């Protein structure tokens, strides 16, 4: 198991889980609406499947937010 943090909150996940799997695990309803930062570096969307997280990693899930005017 790996201890990581997602948006500042501690999470324990299986070792070598991919970012794509982590997105599912966190019940992100629309994966196309999230941008991911791993230890302060943005991860390309194309690399979500191939990038794995390890113990101590800090992730930020940033969501598109569109409202404002209408």
């Amino acid at each position, binding site marked *: 198991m790996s201890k990581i943090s997602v*948006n*500042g909150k501690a999470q324990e996940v299986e070792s070598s889980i991919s970012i794509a799997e982590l997105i599912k695990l966190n019940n992100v309803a*629309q994966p*196309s*609406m999230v*941008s991911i*930062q791993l230890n*302060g570096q*943005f991860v*390309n*969307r194309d690399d979500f499947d191939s990038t794995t997280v390890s113990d101590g990693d800090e992730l*930020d899930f*940033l*969501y*598109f*937010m*569109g*409202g*404002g*005017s*209408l």
Partner: protein
Amino acid sequence: MDFTEEQIQRYSRHILLQDVGVEGQEKINNGKVLIVGAGGLGAPIALYLAAAGVGTIGIIDGDVVDLSNLQRQVIHFTPDVNKPKVISAKEKINLINPDVKVVTYQKLLTAENALDIINDYDFVVDGTDNFPVKFLINDACMIAKKPFSHGGILRFDGQTLTYVPGSACYRCLFHSPPPPNAVPTCSQAGVLGAIAGMLGTIQAAEVLKYLTGVGDLLTNRLLTFNAKTMEFRTVHTKHNDNCPVCGSHPTVTGLVDYEQAVCDIESHRKQK
């Protein structure tokens, strides 16, 4: 600029602030700020910038006031329904502060007109409801080397960041617009009215900080909050080398009008 007695009185609470003073207030009065969208975010932004005495406020919005806007768009009043939003906003700004020159653009910001309009201003504030224009503002400000404030709200959440040339831009965080069908429409998602005020006033404060040079701007940081928990979070970000507009191999070199799923409550009604 020599302030009149009346202006000294009007702006006294700014002038009293050690970091602002007469000098800072003069910078505000000389400032030119463009607000894109006279809606949920644009309303509080315009009200506070008008009260602060920002010299020129440009407002661009092609819409008219709808009854469903009044739950959060506090610059528009009940008798303003069906009035162009830019006219309604201009009337309130003039009432709040006759020092402010208001320039209205009753149209959409497009790839064609964006640079011409933005070039006349010192700072651009994004108060829009859709991603195509958010990306357009970002790209146009990159090209024109103008600072801007991004703001977005949805349901109980808000997010904002400030860009100045050299800092992480909106695309550094959000590479390209989400697929149109992935975007929840406002009629599906909704928004708590007061969220617009919470976020819009943060954006207005950033504008005043920029104009006066006071404090640290929200650059290389994304501020997010959720009103259900009232938790605020700052995510530190940095310039992204893979950014399509300011990375080392830019793929976006001109302005584009992206297709959008229009957040249109009327079309939603018709679908029902």
